[in-house]
């Protein structure tokens, strides 16, 4: 099946020049856009200085897609917008139309194919996520399955623009946090809660002990010999299950069906609008890992979204809302338990303590 290349080998050409792929209307008005309007959830209209109007129809994708589906998108692009489309930084797909009249037919076709239109304005957009059990060795949980389960429950939040502000959820399947978990309105994070099980037999063959020792943020790993061969030992109380040792050394697996789980984080953002970018903070330290539909995780996320939608003011991101009402109120409103795990005990922990007498009762 393989077609061997016949021409001389090509390397280092870099990505194709973006101009090759721009719709003519975009090329013409490049850098000359004047303003935009949101015509409906998922439908933007950008107006150029020239008076030209570009219509964007944004639809959700599952990100993990078969070439069959991509071809369907290509067909839609041919049908409605001269074969031009783009993807967004949150894995949505955007069709760029010149003709306003194509909006509705395109939306119908997308609906038929099962790709919801939305994610614009003050709505929930697609969940930025990672590989999970589909491809990564490091995953404490699956990613795509949780995303699907959560978005099924929050479908209307994507197709409607009735939230106080933009809402961004991210999901990562381990502490490496490939994605934006550390700065999302709501983040779902796969976690381990038991230390790695050292595979002494294979360790010397597959890892360098000094690198392995250096990999541990808390210094929990010490050199040791096992049956006369170099290996390591673990001070279990010093382990906080980050998995960095496993990243550098396959002989330190952490996966554990019984004890792997999920944690929920809230209040991060990256935009500079109004408030400075913020990290997400711990909301729920541990939820069980229950495929195929992770009901506990779905409930927790839906709970946060509902409470936020009900209580936040217009244009208030989740973190801005919580900072206004205070974290005690957040825990009251959601009913989540506040535990010792919520209190930071890592490097800068002291700076997270409440160092004032300003308290709400």
């Amino acid at each position: 099946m393989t077609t061997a290349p016949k021409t001389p080998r090509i390397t280092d050409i870099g990505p194709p020049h973006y101009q090759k792929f721009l719709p003519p209307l975009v090329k013409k008005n490049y850098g000359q856009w004047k303003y935009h309007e949101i015509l409906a959830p998922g439908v933007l209209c950008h107006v150029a200085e020239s008076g030209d109007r570009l219509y964007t129809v944004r639809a959700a994708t599952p990100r993990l897609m078969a070439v069959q589906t991509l071809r369907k998108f290509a067909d839609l692009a041919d049908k409605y917008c001269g074969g031009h489309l783009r993807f967004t930084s949150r894995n949505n797909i955007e069709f760029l139309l010149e003709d306003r009249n194509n909006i509705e037919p395109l939306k119908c076709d997308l609906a038929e194919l099962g790709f919801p239109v939305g994610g614009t304005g003050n709505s929930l957009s697609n969940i930025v996520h990672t590989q999970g059990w589909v491809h990564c060795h490091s995953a404490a949980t699956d990613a795509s399955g949780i995303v699907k389960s959560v978005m099924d429950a929050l479908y209307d939040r994507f197709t409607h623009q009735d939230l106080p502000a933009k809402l961004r959820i991210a999901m990562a399947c381990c502490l490496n946090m490939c994605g934006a978990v550390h700065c999302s309105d709501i983040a779902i994070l796969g976690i381990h809660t038991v230390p790695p099980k050292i595979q002494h037999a294979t360790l010397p063959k597959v890892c360098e002990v000094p690198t392995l020792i250096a990999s541990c943020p808390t210094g929990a790993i010490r050199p040791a010999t096992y049956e006369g061969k170099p290996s390591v030992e673990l001070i279990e109380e010093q382990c906080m299950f980050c998995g960095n040792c496993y990243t550098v050394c396959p002989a330190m697996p952490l996966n554990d069906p019984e004890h792997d789980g999920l944690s929920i984080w809230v209040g991060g953002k990256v935009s500079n609008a109004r408030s400075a970018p913020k990290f997400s903070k711990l909301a729920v330290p541990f939820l069980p890992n229950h495929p195929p539909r992770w009901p506990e995780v779905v409930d927790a996320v839906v709970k946060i979204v509902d409470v936020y939608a009900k209580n936040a003011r217009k244009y208030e991101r989740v973190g801005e809302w919580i900072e206004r009402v205070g974290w005690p109120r957040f825990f009251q409103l959601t009913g989540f338990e506040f535990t010792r795990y919520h209190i930071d005990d890592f490097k800068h922990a002291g700076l997270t303590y409440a160092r004032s007498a300003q308290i709400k009762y």
Partner: protein
Amino acid sequence: MDDASNGKPKTELLDQLEEGPWPSFVKEIKAASQGSEKATDLLRQLERSYEERKGHWKHGGMVGVLGYGGGVIGRYSDLPEEFPQVAHFHTMRVNHPAGWFYTSDALRTICDIWERHGSGMTNMHGSTGDIILLGTTTDQLEPTFQELAQNGFDLGGSGSAVRTPNCCVGMARCEWACFDTMKLCYDVTQAYQDELHRPAFAYKFKFKFAGCPNDCVASIARADLSVIGTWKDDIQVDDAEVANYAAAGVDIQKEVCDLCPTKTMGWDGKKLSIDNRECVHCMHCINVLPKALRPGKERGAVVLIGAKAPIMQGALLSSVLIPFVPAEELLDTLKELVKRIWDFWDEYGTNRERVGELIQRVGMPAFLDGIGLEPVPEMVAAPRDNPYIFFETKNGGAK
């Protein structure tokens, strides 16, 4: 474990993820498995993971294409006998076109190549921005690569290298872009082809370009070097359009003025006044009134450094390195700056230390000395509050 009746894999758990209104990745894998045994075994192994609540991939190995040190993530099943088609299941990271624009033809070309050489499964896109071609065997890597190359595509980054830079849609479709994000992203990507394909650093290095402080590519959270567009002069105001918004029901005082972080706007019911000296260029007012307000005309970008995920000393957000670079000077300034940063990182960085962590370790002052940048107060949220100053012993602390 397969359904005896039709030879299709039995996936009772995954099947539950075909239900519900959101697009289903399970349907996607099933679609791909029409044409690909690899996708079928992926489905089977994934079902197993769902049953056992446990991944079944081995820790990756080094595989790749000739002359490149990256762009491929090696992946092997830990149940190769049961799922032989995913015994090898490497991903290829293909450098996306800036702004993620495609023609339908380009998209079909990728599909065709991948259908021939791989599982037919993709990620559009990976978190760094690449086209992820998900799952093939070692022998297919080079042919896939060359076919892609013949069609104008190249691999993206992985390992301790420059990673595929990405950017927001910028001037292609956004009225707020303060510099040409797609061009700069493209130029930077081309400038560092060698650093991208041949890992020679202590760890990864990511660039992200956002056209304005809304930061639609999360550059401040996810790039070692974050370039965020902004402006220096006054916000452009169209009074008539402000009035129109007000007439249309926007509560200018509450929704705009009161939410300005520096409260630098006034609204008397008729005219919006802005004391631009106090504006921190947060974008909020412009976001709410896009037809009436626009960034100023003196445009450029803030250059920030050091964001990353938590491993190992805790997550970092990028922090200000150069408060303002005019748009036309961005490429040259970045090239010069990046050279000095990499030199410093090369000399002082330890194994697997991102540049942000290096700065934390040696201290921003030492880093600035090292790269030859003058300190300015815009670099800090506040000056130090501890008295532990390492005065230069040479001159006894006199400034």
